[in-house]
């Protein structure tokens, strides 16, 4: 059973990583990256590393998406002004 969970969690992580790369719009990629972070946290936990899982949760669930979305907003604002 433990092995089944490891395989499932790793497959989820691999799928999320692929999806994160294939989503070319950074704002939408941020959503997939957040799911990748959650998937990694599960994978770390089934690999019996709850410490690393906690670390990943803290960073991946809110912090990284917030930074990416703020960057996207800043960059778009700059571009919109340039076109005017």
């Amino acid at each position: 059973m433990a092995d089944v969970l490891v395989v499932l969690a790793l497959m989820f992580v691999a799928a999320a990583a692929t999806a994160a790369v294939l989503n070319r719009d950074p704002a939408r990629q941020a959503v997939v990256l957040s799911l990748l972070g959650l998937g990694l946290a599960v994978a770390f936990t089934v690999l019996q590393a709850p410490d690393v899982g906690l670390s990943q949760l803290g960073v991946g669930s809110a912090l990284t998406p917030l930074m990416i979305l703020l960057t996207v907003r800043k960059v778009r604002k700059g571009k919109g002004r340039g076109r005017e």
Partner: protein
Amino acid sequence: MNPWLGGAALLLVGGLGPSLWAAASGGAGRRVVAQNMATLLLCLVFLLLAQGYGRTAYVDLALVVAVLGPAGTLVFARLLLDRDSGDPPGARWLTPVVAVATPATVIPLCIVTGPGRATVKLVVIGLLLLAGGVATTRAVRRG
């Protein structure tokens, strides 16, 4: 065969898998709803794993997701969702799923754990999750 780990595997395949699909395709609204659903289910997965491995220390992960998961969804609701685009598809399922799945997971865990500090922690996680679910649904549907 450990039923708790079995439940976690089932949630992983049946809950988080489809959430990933929805989060990786379609419009912004659908993605944010999927992300919200994923964090709520993930919290339950961690609770089931903690029980399944027989390690109460793992409950801390569920505790952290219960507060940071909604925070993440609120980030997306604030910076990604278009205010005038209306109700995102699937948003009306959020509250029923949270309202059913959370007690369905937390109450059996409380019964198995028995009275004590661990049970109080489980109840706190359940309440945080319910409050977070309601608040994020409100934010996502504000649309």
